[in-house]
């Protein structure tokens, strides 16, 4: 029988038990690499396989958990060598047994955290896995099992690598803590959404805990996943002193019956389990059929850690879209990711459930900027994203880089769009927004728009995109231009929801274009749309009236049970009566680090004072005084940082004002970066805040920055000063290399360096122009460099 059929059959499929712990029990030396044993002691590995086959395993797992190029470099070997040896050993054991046994290529996590938590890029992770997958298929493995994963992003890299480099079935198993999430914070729902979307053949859970502790996760997987569920727990928990696991073979088997009753269809063991456990398992399971499961359709999207179930109206934040936004346009042109991230954080705290991301501008490399933005966003914002671009190649790049299940915005009824976008949606397992327009534009009547919607839905269904992943946008027209159109949109929305059984989405702000008091019109239209069945409201969540309308609607419709969400959103307003504020000066507020007060006072000042006057007469003197106090040891770094942040709040007010008049305040551009291999950037960011306070434009390249990226930015922006930071002794080498490259390619620019383990001597030795012991000194360096340049 084919392995694919076995995975999906009515019978419970039995895998083997633990390999690593079994090898230890059989005398593998501490510190030995299990993978090396495939070469040095194949008989031992074969013996373990043979034991498990004798115990009743139908699938045996190769001894290749750590056989990736990154881990194997420690034993001077390669995936090709180890994997072909390991698969051959397993196949020999299977053939000798003369039982109908299949060989699963085992793939474990790479052993490094992916960006942004670590330094391994998604693309490199993909390459590493692809190498293993190809080697496994070439050696003759029957299927692939990825196990013990805890990062959903890494799981995605693996799944893509399998799908694009082999035709083998793949099982995706993750490890959960008792909290019901993985180490990286991934919940089972996200595992399901991602793995189903990307075409896994089965999914489940292994390692970390015993079967009883894992039961809540198993229950969730069985209740929500359409795929067969695999369960391979540990033999309980190990005793810290003896290393012995605390669940016996009989108890293990008894617990696994519970998992079978919940609907698990594939079973085996992980750490601490032995052939005895598998034998017991086979005894209690044999003859049992899989418990049938009924899975209700679920409309949901997710990030690596957060799931948004669209079972009620949800807010999609629309602010990351340059249309009509001067500051965002500028930020995109300058490569200022910080500004975009700030927009994300703001919308998140205002109550957005999903964020739309559109970075389209005529003169930028949209694909590169989109990928960079998505990666940066998922480092700081747990909300699922909606990828917004008319360009299929941008969509595809974004779909690859995204961690989780996103929404694609959008496809429309035009044949060109349908045939370009929907296959991407299918391949990457995304949800999709369908716009009810086609080559003839937006139809006038509701009926015609419903027709287009039907065309889109039928096409999506035919490609295997499930109905629950389709969101139809019936399109908002401008009421001042076509007053009757508002009613048509609402009618179409209502019909689409009822007759096509899909979800709906609408960007509402367009309704009031050209009218005074736009918010008034917008929020009423939003309420009407919600009443007609709107699921995703694309709005500005920072507008109290708009997000409040969604909250109030959920309250009145008895969706927000006990008004919990509503009260949570607004109770602080009621509870927190602002204390009478002392009348203080901006200078005082800055010196005490009172950001809110400082920003309010600046708001007031700016009504009757010139922006530059505020900067030169108030902010800079206040900062100078704080800086002097810091140098004299009267205040310390914490107070300095607070004051700098308070001053930043003032500058934000002023910048907003200046952008209205089109003016700027930059004294010059400085590139800042934490060097390659280093991920500590608090220090660099404090420097950034302070430099900005003094009027410099900082091009912040972030952390773990390639040498070339620093040089490219320095050349592109033609900067006079580059600041490099490194925190660890091990990354000082990167600093030196970056300096060398800068000297070669941009010799006219000065370099200032800093970081915890750096000394003045060392800084000079590696060729820097300046060493800076703290943020304040970096400002002094900048002042010097830029004033010299002026003279």
């Amino acid at each position, binding site marked *: 029988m084919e392995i694919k059929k076995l995975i999906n059959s009515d019978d419970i499929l039995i895998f083997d038990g633990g390999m690593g712990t079994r090898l230890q029990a059989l005398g593998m030396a501490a510190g030995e690499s299990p993978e090396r044993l495939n070469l040095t002691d194949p008989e031992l590995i074969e013996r373990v396989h043979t034991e498990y086959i004798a115990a009743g395993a139908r699938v045996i797992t190769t001894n290749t958990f750590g056989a990736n190029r990154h881990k194997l470099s420690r034993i001077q070997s390669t995936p090709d060598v180890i994997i072909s040896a390991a698969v051959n050993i397993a196949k020999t054991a299977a053939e000798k047994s003369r039982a109908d046994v299949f060989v699963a290529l085992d793939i474990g996590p790479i052993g*490094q955290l992916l960006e942004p938590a670590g330094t391994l890029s998604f693309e490199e992770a993909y390459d590493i896995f692809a190498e293993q997958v190809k080697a496994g298929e070439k050696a003759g493995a029957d299927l692939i099992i990825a196990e013990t994963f805890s990062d959903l992003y890494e799981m995605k890299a693996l799944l893509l690598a399998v799908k694009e480099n082999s035709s083998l079935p793949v099982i995706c198993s993750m490890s959960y803590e008792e909290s019901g999430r993985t180490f990286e914070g991934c919940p089972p729902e996200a595992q399901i959404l991602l793995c189903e979307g990307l075409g896994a053949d089965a999914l489940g859970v292994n390692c970390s805990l015993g079967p009883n502790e894992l039961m809540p996760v198993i229950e969730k997987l069985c209740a929500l996943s359409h795929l067969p569920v695999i369960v391979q727990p540990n033999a309980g928990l190990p005793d810290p002193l003896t290393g012995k696991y605390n669940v016996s073979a009989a108890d293990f088997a008894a617990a696994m019956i519970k998992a079978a009753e919940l609907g698990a269809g594939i079973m085996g063991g992980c750490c601490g389990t032995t052939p005895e456990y598998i034998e017991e398992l086979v005894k209690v399971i044999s003859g049992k059929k899989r418990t049938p499961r009924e899975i209700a359709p679920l409309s949901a999207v997710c990030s690596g850690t957060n799931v948004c179930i669209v079972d009620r109206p949800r807010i999609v934040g629309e602010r990351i879209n340059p249309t009509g936004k001067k500051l965002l346009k500028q930020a995109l042109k300058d490569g200022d990711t910080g500004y975009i991230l700030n927009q994300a954080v703001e919308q998140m705290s205002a109550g957005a459930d999903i964020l739309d991301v559109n970075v389209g501008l005529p003169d930028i490399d949209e694909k590169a900027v989109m990928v960079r933005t998505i990666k940066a966003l998922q480092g700081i914002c747990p909300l699922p994203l909606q990828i917004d671009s008319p360009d299929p190649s941008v969509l595809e790049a974004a779909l690859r880089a995204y961690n989780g299940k996103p929404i694609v915005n959008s496809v429309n009824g035009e044949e060109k769009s349908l045939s370009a976008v929907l296959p991407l949606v299918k391949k990457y397992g995304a949800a999709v927004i369908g716009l009810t327009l086609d080559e003839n534009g937006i139809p006038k009547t509701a009926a015609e728009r419903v027709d287009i919607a039907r065309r889109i839905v039928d096409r999506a269904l035919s490609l295997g995109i499930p109905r629950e992943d389709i969101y139809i946008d019936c399109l908002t027209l401008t009421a001042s231009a076509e007053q009757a159109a508002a009613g048509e949109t609402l009618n179409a929305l209502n019909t689409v929801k009822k007759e096509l059984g899909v979800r709906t989405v609408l960007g509402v702000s367009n309704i009031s274009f050209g009218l005074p008091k736009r918010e008034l019109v917008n929020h009423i239209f939003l309420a009407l749309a919600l009443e007609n069945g709107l699921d995703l409201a694309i709005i500005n969540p920072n507008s109290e009236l708009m997000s409040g309308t969604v909250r109030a609607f959920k309250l009145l419709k008895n969706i927000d049970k006990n008004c919990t969400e509503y009260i949570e959103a607004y109770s602080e307003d009621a509870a927190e009566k602002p204390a009478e504020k002392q009348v203080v000066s901006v200078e005082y507020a800055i010196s005490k680090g009172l950001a809110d007060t400082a920003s309010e006072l600046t708001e007031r000042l700016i009504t009757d004072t010139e922006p530059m006057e505020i900067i030169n007469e108030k902010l800079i003197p206040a900062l100078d005084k704080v800086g002097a106090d810091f140098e004299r040891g009267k205040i310390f770094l914490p107070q300095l940082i607070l004051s700098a942040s308070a001053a930043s709040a003032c500058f934000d007010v002023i910048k907003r004002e200046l952008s209205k008049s089109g003016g700027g305040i930059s004294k010059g551009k400085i590139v800042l970066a934490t060097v390659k291999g280093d991920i*500590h950037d608090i220090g660099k960011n404090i420097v950034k805040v302070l430099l900005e306070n003094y009027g410099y434009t900082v091009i912040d390249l972030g952390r773990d920055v390639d040498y070339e990226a620093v040089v490219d930015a320095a050349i592109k922006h033609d900067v006079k000063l580059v600041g490099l930071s490194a925190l660890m002794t091990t990354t000082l080498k990167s600093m030196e290399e970056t300096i060398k490259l800068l000297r070669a390619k941009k010799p006219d620019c000065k370099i200032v360096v800093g970081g*915890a383990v750096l000394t003045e001597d060392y800084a000079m030795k590696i060729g820097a122009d300046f060493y800076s012991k703290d943020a304040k000194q970096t400002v002094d360096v900048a002042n010097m460099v830029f004033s010299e340049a002026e003279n």
Partner: protein
Amino acid sequence: MTITEIDKAEAYRYMGGRGEPDGEVYRKLCECEKMLLPALTPRYRYEVFDISVTDDGVMLSGGVLLKGKDIISHLDGCERAVVMCVTAGQKADTLIRTLEISDMAAAAMTDCLASAAAEQICEKAEREIFSVVKTKYRTTRFSPGYGDLPLAVQPQLLKLCDAERKIGLHVTDTLLLTPRKSVTAIIGISDKVKSGAADVVSCDNCAARENCMIRKNGGCCGNKKADKQ
């Protein structure tokens, strides 16, 4: 294990403050603590090894050599050593990254609070470990990067404790621990009453000596935080 309160005075010292935090700094530290506490997921693992002194350092029975003179003197008189790996978890890192976008001062404070929390997790872990591992005498913690014990041993220490798989603790090619607020350490233990000295790391053999904020401000951390930021 749960941490219910973070030593704010310690965090203040990590930031380079002197004396006790007060005013806006204290208020903000409390605010950051409130955000950080639910983001902490403390986890630890340890293993006990027999040790033997070699020409180059101390050999663990797990087959790992701890190189250098300083580890020899630190473990002087001990027959065994505990290798422990501790992490405050991934969520704290994410929180700090997010704060870096919206509020740099809060990010810097939370970063130092998380370092203080990692220290507290170490203390708690030690208490738990030594309620199980019975010994008459034990040294203080000694970590890679202290004295002449190279950071290069990090991957091996993690492997000895299966830390990647068991507590989600990793190390980059540049030898940084990830999640960032993590510690690996070696503690010597002995059933004899110990005669050797050197159970406290002085500033003289600390890797952070040159730029240590605490030292600059006239203090000494004991052996607490040479690998913290």
